[in-house]
């Protein structure tokens, strides 16, 4: 086992039962996260990025969901094999999650102060007054103005941006080593989004945290990520350091994804488009999941899915593609 990774996911498959049949929502996920690193998980809706994060946290609703196979090692311990009580000690303590919609994740009838204190009291050996003091300190750190007064306010009394700060405060309360942030800025206006991204980067640096950041926004990926995993149809199709990914995408899907986004800096000559649509989990193509929309498709792509394998001479980059991957090294770019 690779001891140097903080988190390592191996061959994770999570399936959902639809009308009696089990369909994988994510399949064969392999990824790792190192200390202080930011890994972006990018994909469109239905690509499985949230399911991956929820599986790591063991928060998949069961039924209808089910983790079918795989391991999630955190510092050498397989989280998926732990009894629930032990997992509960890790969740919110060593590993915490921030969701997209704070209003639905916060309890509307408890003051935000109590909700931040809760994690501290549950996980750490502190008295209520100590927890309160810590909670106010954290609210200050996430820059909620007049924290000691707002401690007693309810979630609905906060704006969207401030609610997301409350969520971040809850997640940070126990100084976790890993933060999983699931589209934490998608519901926010762009100026507020910039504030939250900056805050996360600042806290990450201060506490030496590692972060998995889930987003569909390639602009955010370029701004904050160290490494990127691109997901499509429940699988990781490409993993690369952020610079390489944007400069020289290898998977045809990644390549197209970069050509279909409009750019605020105006470097969009002509927008491309990907024909067709993302397949739903009960109608996944038998071969490569992207094949039906892919320009480079071969017969093999239609029949059989490729593996996610390192590029020759570049082990940091992995690609799941018969044409662009290493198994049959064809021409570099057509």
């Amino acid at each position, binding site marked *: 086992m690779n001891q140097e990774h903080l988190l390592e996911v191996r061959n994770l498959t999570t399936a959902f039962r639809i009308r009696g049949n089990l369909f994988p929502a994510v399949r064969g996920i392999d990824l790792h996260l190192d200390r202080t690193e930011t890994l972006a998980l990018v994909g469109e809706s239905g690509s499985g990025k949230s399911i991956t994060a929820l599986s790591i946290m063991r928060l998949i609703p069961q039924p209808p969901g089910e983790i079918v196979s795989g391991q999630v090692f955190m510092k050498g311990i397989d989280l998926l094999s732990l009894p629930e009580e032990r997992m509960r000690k890790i969740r919110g303590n060593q590993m915490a999650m921030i969701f997209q919609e704070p209003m639905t994740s916060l309890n509307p009838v408890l003051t935000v102060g109590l909700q931040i204190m809760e994690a501290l009291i549950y996980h750490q050996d502190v008295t209520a007054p100590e927890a309160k003091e810590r909670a106010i300190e954290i609210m200050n750190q996430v820059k909620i103005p007049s924290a000691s007064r707002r401690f007693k306010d309810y979630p609905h009394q906060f704006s969207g941006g401030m609610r997301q700060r409350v969520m971040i405060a809850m997640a940070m309360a126990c100084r976790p080593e890993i933060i999983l942030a699931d589209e934490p800025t998608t519901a926010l206006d762009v100026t507020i989004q910039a*504030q939250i991204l900056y805050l996360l980067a600042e806290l990450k640096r201060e506490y030496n945290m590692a972060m998995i950041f889930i987003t569909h926004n390639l*602009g955010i990926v370029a701004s904050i990520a160290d490494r990127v995993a691109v997901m499509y149809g429940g699988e990781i199709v490409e993993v690369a350091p952020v610079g390489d990914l944007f400069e020289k995408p290898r998977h045809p899907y990644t390549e197209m994804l970069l050509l279909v*986004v409009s*750019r*605020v800096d105006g470097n969009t000559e002509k927008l491309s488009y*990907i024909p067709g649509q993302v397949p739903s989990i009960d109608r996944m193509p038998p071969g490569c999941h992207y094949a039906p929309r892919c320009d480079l498709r071969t017969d093999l792509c239609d029949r059989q899915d490729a593996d996610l394998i390192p590029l020759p001479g570049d082990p940091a980059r992995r690609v799941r593609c018969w044409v662009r991957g290493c198994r049959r090294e064809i021409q570099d770019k057509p």
Partner: protein
Amino acid sequence: MSSDILLRVEGLRKFFTVKRGFPNPVKLTVKAVDDVSFEVRRRESFGLVGESGCGKSTVGRSILRLVEPDAGQILFHGKDILPLDRSQMQDLRRKMQIIFQDPYSSLNPRRKIGRTLAEPLHVHRMGTGGEIRAIIDRILDDVGLSPETLDKFPHEFSGGQRQRIAIARALIFRPELIIADEPVSALDVSIQSQILLLFEKLQAEYDLSYIFVAHDLAVVRYFCHRVAIMYLGRIVEQGDRNRLFEEPRHPYTRALLAASPIPDPRARRQMARLEGEVASAINTPEGCYFHPRCPECREICRQEYPPWHWVTPDQGVACHLYV
């Protein structure tokens, strides 16, 4: 020049009254749209941009009189539409259509698409059954949908296809103006570009003008010819797309641009942060509405709302820095 102008909005104002508080509610005024003026030229895409609550959607809806403006003029082909009565307005709405962000909530879930598309044609007696069918087939083809679409229900389609259906419906009377209210915001990026390209194609084929209401500056930069930036119910800057994006004048426009992430790690920068939050249109600040967040705030900004000033013939701004 003026014959080139399809729509002209002058001094548009819409205030709403809301009740806040419990158990003794007080009436408050929301200044949703205040003194908004702009023009839309033929075959132009005009972008209305701003953050949530800035009034951009209210402007769009006012133009169709889906909300009734309190003051101002809306001149379509030079004629004010606000005095028109109900039936005159109904006729005019053939020329002006609207598309919403979520097509699912604007399509009747219990009606097959064929009926949804044919109904307005029947209501306006636009021809025999066969003629109507021919019109619909043609439009379906134009928006990239197959004829089988007609026998299906809205839930059988993906978000992108539903947006195509909404576009088909908007096109039925061959309108001159389409107000598109965040038409791609709910779509995945790979589908967004499909729909944007469709809008472009239709603009040429149908001689359309668009008012494109959006919050995503990248999409607006790609799609719109001219752009107005709104903040708390007012236009703070407007002008030609290239000028506005390359030489933004208003500190708010600059802040918006600086906060929009660029999909290129080499452009990674200290993301400029605008302090504070968007104030509410209920308690608009004294002076310039933006002054509490403005990095270049001066004394006069706290006292007076800045007058409108055309810096160049195709770029104007409401900011004391340029007076």
